C-alpha cells in the first residue's frame, strides 16, 4: 500500500526537522522520496506528524509480568476491553493482558516497545507473550549480571570468554542487550542479603558491583551491541541512594572515549537524598549536574504517576523492603532463574510525603537535564505508573500550569522541599519528539526507527494538534487528549489506528542480536561453560536455546563484534 501524508507539521529530530510543513510518502512499509499511481492520501493539515513512539523501558511480557497478573485479579475486572471485529477481548489497568497491551500502545501512536528485563532461563515465556502482543515491534533485554557463569568469568577477569558466552546466550535466547539489575545484590538475595555500596564484596565470587558494571560495559563494547548496558543501580528505592547512582555513573567514565557507554534506567527511583524516609529529599540537581557535565550516560525517568501501580522488578531485595513498608501482598519469583523478581501492588498518593517527593524528582530531572537526547520519558510501566499515562507526563513537561495544578494538591511539607515550583522550563513538541521516539530509538541503536528519513520504517504517528495555534503551556488538556488518542498510527506502512481506535490488527517484529564470535573462542568457551552447567544447574544448557521459528516475526540484527 502506498500512503501520502500531506501538509502535516513534521517533527523529526533525527533529521533536524522542527515543525516544517511537509509531505511524507510511504511505500512497501518504508519511507520513500515520493509515490505515484494509486495512493492513499491522508490529509494531515493542521496536525502534528511524528515518527512512531519508541518505548525503551517497559515491562510487558515474561514470567514476572505474568506473576503480576496472577497476583492482582482485582486489577482486572474493573478495566475490561470488549471484543470487537478487530480487537480481541482482554483485561487491563496496571498489568494489561498481552493483546490489550499492544492495542493501547498503538492507540497512543507507539510502534516499538522494549521489554526491559527477562531472566535468561525464562525467556521462552517472554517470547511467547511478545508473540501475542500485536501492533508493535518489540525486543527484550536479558538480565545477565547475576548469572553465575558471567560472575565467575568476571571475577577471574576472563573478559573475552565472558563476552563469547554473553554473545552466545543473546543469540540462544534471542535477546537484544545486557540488562543489569542491582549487580551483586540479586545474587546475595538468594541468601537473604543485599549489597549496600558498589564496593561491597559478593561472595563466593569475590567480586564487587563496580567490577560487574565495568566488566559488562567492556563486554558490551567488545560485542559491539547496538544498545549500551542498561543499568538498574544498587540501593534502588532507598533514601540517600543518589550517591550510589553517581558512583555507578562515575565508575565507567574512563571507558567512554566520548561515546555513550551507560544507560541508567528509572533514574527517579535512585535520586533520593536524605537519611531516612522522614528526611527524604530530591537529589535531582546533583544528578542533573553530573549528567550535564558527563556526556557518556543516558537516563530514563521512571516517572511517578499518582494512582494505582504494580511494582515489579528483578530486584528482589528492594521489593522485600517495599513489602515491609506497605504491608501489601507480594510475591518473589525467578530466584532460581538467576534474577529475583519481586512484585508488590502499590498506590502512589498525592498527600503522601514520600510519594510527592518521588513525583517531583522525575520531573525535576527531566527539566534540569539540558540535553533531551540523553533523558527519556518512561514510567517504568507498571512500576511507577502505567504506559497509558505518558500523555499526562507529556502535558506536565510541556506546561508549568499543569504541574502547578498538581502541586496545589500534593503534600505541603513535600512541596516546601521541592525545587520543581521554581523550574520554568517547558518542553517543546520537538523536544517531546526526542524524548519519546528519536532519542530512544537512537539509544537503542534501532537505525530504522524514530525518524522519517528516506529508508526508515514507515512507523508514523499523527496527532490532531495544530502547533501554530495551540499554546501547550496553557492548553495542556488538549495536548493530553491528542497524545492519548492518535489521529492516525501507521505501522509498517499500514494504517493500524484511526482516531485512537485500532482499525487493523497486525503483528510486529521481534528484534534480537546475532553477534558473530570467532569460532575457536566460541567452541572453547561453550565446552567450558557446559561443564559448569552440568555441575551447577538442574536444567540442560540446551534448555536455553530458542529457535528462530518460535518467534512470530523474527528480525535478527547482524552484529560484527570487536572480538
Amino acid at each position: 500500500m502506498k500512503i501520502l501524508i500531506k501538509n502535516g507539521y513534521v517533527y523529526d529530530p533525527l533529521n533536524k526537522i522542527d515543525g516544517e510543513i511537509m509531505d511524507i510518502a510511504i511505500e512497501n512499509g518504508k519511507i520513500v522520496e515520493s509515490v505515484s499511481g494509486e495512493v492513499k492520501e491522508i490529509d494531515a493539515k493542521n496536525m502534528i506528524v511524528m515518527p512512531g513512539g519508541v518505548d525503551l523501558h517497559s515491562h510487558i511480557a515474561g514470567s514476572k509480568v505474568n506473576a503480576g497478573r496472577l497476583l492482582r485479579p482485582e486489577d482486572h475486572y474493573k478495566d475490561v476491553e470488549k471484543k470487537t471485529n478487530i480487537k480481541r477481548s482482554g483485561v487491563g489497568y496496571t498489568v494489561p493482558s498481552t493483546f490489550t497491551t499492544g492495542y493501547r500502545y498503538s492507540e497512543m501512536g507507539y510502534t516499538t516497545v522494549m521489554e526491559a528485563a527477562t531472566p535468561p532461563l525464562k525467556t521462552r515465556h517472554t517470547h511467547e507473550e511478545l508473540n501475542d502482543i500485536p501492533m508493535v515491534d518489540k525486543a527484550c533485554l536479558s538480565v545477565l549480571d547475576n548469572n553465575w557463569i558471567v560472575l565467575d568469568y568476571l571475577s577471574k577477569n576472563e573478559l573475552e570468554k565472558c563476552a563469547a558466552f554473553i554473545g552466545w546466550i543473546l543469540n540462544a535466547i534471542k535477546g537484544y542487550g545486557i540488562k543489569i539489575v542491582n549487580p551483586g545484590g540479586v545474587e546475595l538475595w538468594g541468601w537473604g542479603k543485599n549489597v549496600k555500596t558498589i564496593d561491597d564484596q559478593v561472595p563466593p565470587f569475590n567480586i564487587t558491583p563496580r567490577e560487574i558494571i565495568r566488566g559488562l560495559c567492556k563486554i558490551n563494547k567488545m560485542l559491539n551491541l547496538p544498545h549500551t548496558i542498561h543499568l538498574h543501580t544498587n540501593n534502588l528505592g532507598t533514601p540517600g541512594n543518589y550517591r550510589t547512582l553517581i558512583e555507578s555513573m562515575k565508575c565507567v567514565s574512563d571507558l567512554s572515549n566520548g561515546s555513550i557507554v551507560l544507560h541508567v534506567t528509572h533514574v527517579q527511583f535512585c535520586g533520593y537524598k536524605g537519611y531516612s524516609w522522614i528526611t527524604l529529599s530530591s537529589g535531582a540537581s546533583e544528578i542533573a549536574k553530573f549528567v550535564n557535565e558527563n556526556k557518556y550516560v543516558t537516563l530514563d525517568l521512571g516517572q511517578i504517576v499518582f494512582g494505582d501501580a504494580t511494582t515489579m522488578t528483578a530486584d528482589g531485595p528492594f521489593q522485600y523492603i517495599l513489602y515491609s513498608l506497605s504491608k501489601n501482598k507480594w510475591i518473589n519469583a525467578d530466584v532460581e532463574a538467576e534474577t529475583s523478581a519481586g512484585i508488590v501492588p502499590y498506590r502512589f498518593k498525592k498527600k503522601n510525603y514520600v510519594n510527592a517527593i518521588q513525583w517531583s524528582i522525575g520531573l525535576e530531572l527531566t527539566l534540569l537535564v539540558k540535553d533531551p537526547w540523553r533523558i527519556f520519558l518512561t514510567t517504568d510501566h507498571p512500576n511507577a505508573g502505567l504506559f497509558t499515562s505518558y500523555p499526562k507526563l507529556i502535558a506536565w513537561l510541556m506546561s508549568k500550569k499543569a504541574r502547578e495544578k498538581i502541586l496545589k494538591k500534593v503534600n505541603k511539607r513535600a512541596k516546601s522541599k521541592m525545587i520543581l515550583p521554581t523550574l520554568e522550563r517547558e518542553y517543546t513538541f520537538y523536544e517531546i519528539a526526542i524524548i519519546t521516539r528519536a532519542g530512544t530509538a537512537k539509544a537503542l541503536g534501532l537505525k530504522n526507527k524514530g525518524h522519517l528519513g528516506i529508508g526508515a520504517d514507515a512507523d508514523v504517528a499523527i496527532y490532531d494538534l495544530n502547533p501554530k495555534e495551540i499554546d501547550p503551556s496553557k492548553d495542556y488538556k488538549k495536548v493530553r487528549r491528542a497524545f492519548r488518542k492518535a489521529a492516525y498510527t501507521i505501522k509498517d506502512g499500514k494504517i493500524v489506528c484511526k482516531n485512537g481506535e485500532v482499525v487493523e490488527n497486525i503483528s510486529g517484529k521481534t528484534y534480537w542480536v546475532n553477534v558473530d564470535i570467532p569460532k575457536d573462542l566460541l567452541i572453547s568457551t561453550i565446552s567450558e561453560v557446559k561443564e559448569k552447567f552440568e555441575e551447577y544447574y538442574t536444567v540442560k544448557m540446551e534448555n536455553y536455546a530458542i529457535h528462530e521459528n518460535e518467534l512470530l516475526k523474527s528480525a535478527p540484527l547482524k552484529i560484527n563484534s570487536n572480538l
Partner: protein
Amino acid sequence: MSSEIFIKPKYDFKVPIDASAISPNEFSGKTLEEIKAIKVWEGNKEKTIGELFIVEGSTSSEVKNIKIILEGDFSKVRRIGSNMSDGEIIIKGSVGFHLGEKMNGGKILVERNADSWLGSKMKGGVIEVHGNAGDFIGAPYRGETKGMKGGTIIIHGNAGNEIGCWMIGGLIKVRGNCGLFPGIHMKNGTIVVYGNTEGRCGALMKGGKVIILGKVPTVLSSFTFEEIRSSVKANGEKIDGPFYVFTGDLNEEGSGKIFISTLNNTHLKFYEKYIE
C-alpha cells in the same frame, strides 16, 4: 406512595444471570414498562428484564418506598440488590451469588438459601437469610483487600467457609454452624457464630472479634491465650459466656480477639493453667 413490585422468572434458568439492575435504586421513578426494558445479562447474551421475568405491581419515585418481591427460584440470578441504598427486597426462594453487593442501606430478606459472596463489600443495611448461606460472606472479590465495611448480615441456618473475609466493619451473625476460617484476614467488625465451626478461626486477622458459642476443634497456634471472660458485647448486645479469650494473629502482628465458649469446648481446658 409505597409500591410493591413482583418479579417471577419466566422459565428455569440454565445459565447464570447478572441482574445487578434488580434493585430499588434502579427501579425508582420508572414505570413497569421502563423496568422491563432494563438490560440484564443471561450468560453472554444481553437481554431485558421483561424477556426473563414477569414483572407486576406498582412503582414509586421514592427509593425508600419501593419493595421488590421475588418469587420462585433465583438461585442462578446474581448480584441482586447491587449498590442499593434504601428500600426492601424480599426473595421467596433461593438466590445466587453476590446478593446485596456493595449495598449501603435498605433491607434484603431471603426466605430460603443464599449463595456465596452474600453482602460482598457491604457498607450498610441489613440482610437476613432464613435458610443457609454459602462461602465468603461479606468478602471482597478475589484479590481485593477491603471486605464488608458496615451493616448487618443475619443467617438463621448454616454458613460456609471464610465468612467475614477481609472484613473491616459491621456484624455477621450465624445462628447455625459455619465452615473453616471464619474471620480470615479480618481487620475490624464482629462475627458471632451460635453453632459450631470447623476451625481455624481468625487466621491472619489483624483486628476485630470472632465469637463462637458452639464447638471449635482447635485454636491456631499463632493465637495467644489471654483470660476467661464471663460475657462479651457484640455490637451493643451482651452475650453470656464464659469465654476463653485469644489474641492474634501473631503472624500478622494482629490484635484480633476470638471468644470461645468454655462450656462447649472442654478440650481447651488445658489453657486455663496459663492463667496466673
